[in-house]
């Protein structure tokens, strides 16, 4: 019979041979295969103890950056919010008062800065839009949570640890992705 396509495969419909009817040879073959797999390397990694290395372009949770002296870089210009295709970012600017120079790098700062992690698509456009290197995407996941409100991250959650008070945490949060 001519086949309809070049990929057609003829099915073997011969009656089973004695060895096949006995089942046992095939069963032993199968058991040998499973036994080999016992000694193979496991594909699973022990997650919390052992982490899969991220690729250098991995985009995770956002971080609000500080400069070397621990002053916040963000000036609440709103470029990230404009760039955001998911409209996940909202902010409110405020003017720096005299005596707050050690807190904020420039005259204007973000009094409120919120990212809705349920809306965010982690595209990294905010990072690209920022003229002050104030926001970048780190190498961590957004952890799971029980209610929607907890997914709106404010400044408290986003800010990088202080480089002088907590240099270890600062270094860890900085990771490999922030522009140095």
């Amino acid at each position, binding site marked *: 019979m001519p086949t309809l396509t070049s990929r057609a495969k003829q099915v073997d419909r011969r009656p089973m041979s004695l060895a096949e009817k006995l089942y046992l040879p095939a*069963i032993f073959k199968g*058991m040998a*295969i499973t036994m080999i797999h016992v000694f193979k390397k*496991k594909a699973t990694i022990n997650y919390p103890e052992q982490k899969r290395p991220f690729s250098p372009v991995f985009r995770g949770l956002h971080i609000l950056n500080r400069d070397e002296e621990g002053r916040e870089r963000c000036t609440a210009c709103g470029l990230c919010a404009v760039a955001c295709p998911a409209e996940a970012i909202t902010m409110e600017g405020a003017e720096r008062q005299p005596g707050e120079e050690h807190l904020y790098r420039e005259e204007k700062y973000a009094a409120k800065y919120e990212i809705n992690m349920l809306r965010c698509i982690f595209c990294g456009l905010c990072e690209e839009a920022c003229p002050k290197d104030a926001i970048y995407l780190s190498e961590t996941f957004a952890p799971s949570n029980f209610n929607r409100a907890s997914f709106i991250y404010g400044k408290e959650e986003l800010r990088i640890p202080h480089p002088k008070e907590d240099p270890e945490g600062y270094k860890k949060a900085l990771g490999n992705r922030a522009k140095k």
Partner: protein
Amino acid sequence: MLLAIDWLLIIEKFILIVVVVLVALGIAMYSTWAERKVAAVMQDRRGPNRAGPFGLFQPLADGLKLFFKEEIIPNTSNKFLFVLGPMLAMMTAMLTSAVIPWGGKFEIAGRTIDLQIADVNIGILFVFGVVSLGVYGIMIGGWASNNKFSLMAALRAASQMISYELAMGISIIALMFITGSLRLSVIVEQQMNHTWNIIYQPIGFLVFFICALAECNRTPFDLAEAENELNFGYHQEYSSMKLGFYLFAEYINMFISGVIMSTLFFGGYDIPFINEAAYGNVWWITLLGVGALFTKAIIFVLIFMWIRWTIPRFRYDQLMNLGWKALLPLALVNMLITAAVVLWLNK
């Protein structure tokens, strides 16, 4: 002197029963852990490894979970039978352990203690009787659930048990020709003095092993709990510890059938390559014997698991064909040949 009850004997047997029941339960518990571990390593996974070292507390967590689950008895079910089902399954699973010789003899303060609860002269027949009662637990549970799937599963389990018990019984008859006794302790002692029965009865063992898989409802004969055809099988309507009882009974059955296979074909508590009789009734050699029996049984349980995670389930017609057209004739031929050889040798 009918009233002269040997109290020490009663206490001794009571302690033995408690120990056997506890050990069987413990082994069933850890069989669930082993099953998951075996499945995992055969599929290149890791298996339970969070609760305790190597996940060893996992069975405790599972048991606790089952206890805390809501207990549901369906409105349309027959309540009495619904509760009776898992009880029967559990009871029959435990009952067989009564006639198994778990080890040799202990001597404590001049008193010889037999590590067998009841040395019945029809031991293997008793095992058969109890094992075939086991299907009532499944049938009653499946029928009382008043669920079509459960009923189908119960029907399958019943017909499967009947089909495979025939071949199993006949393979045992061939063994009886050689041993000449139904008493399990005698069978073991013969094997300790001579060679193991597997040498004389390899085909009988093969038939027995396959039938044991079928009797335990293990893959490839787990048609009674075929998830993808029957949702869950005969215990579909069960919840909480009643479900746990069914699952437990299955693992106890597996362990007990491993013990029976070691007793009948692999020398029971005989330690290979060592002549125990030379040491007499020393307590540590008896303990080693018990250890040997458990090792053999556990190896059988592991083989059961290995098979489960290797081959798929039989189709129902294949199951019936195998039982009636392959195993039964094979067992019959084996029996006839054994009988002829025994007759010829005895002449």
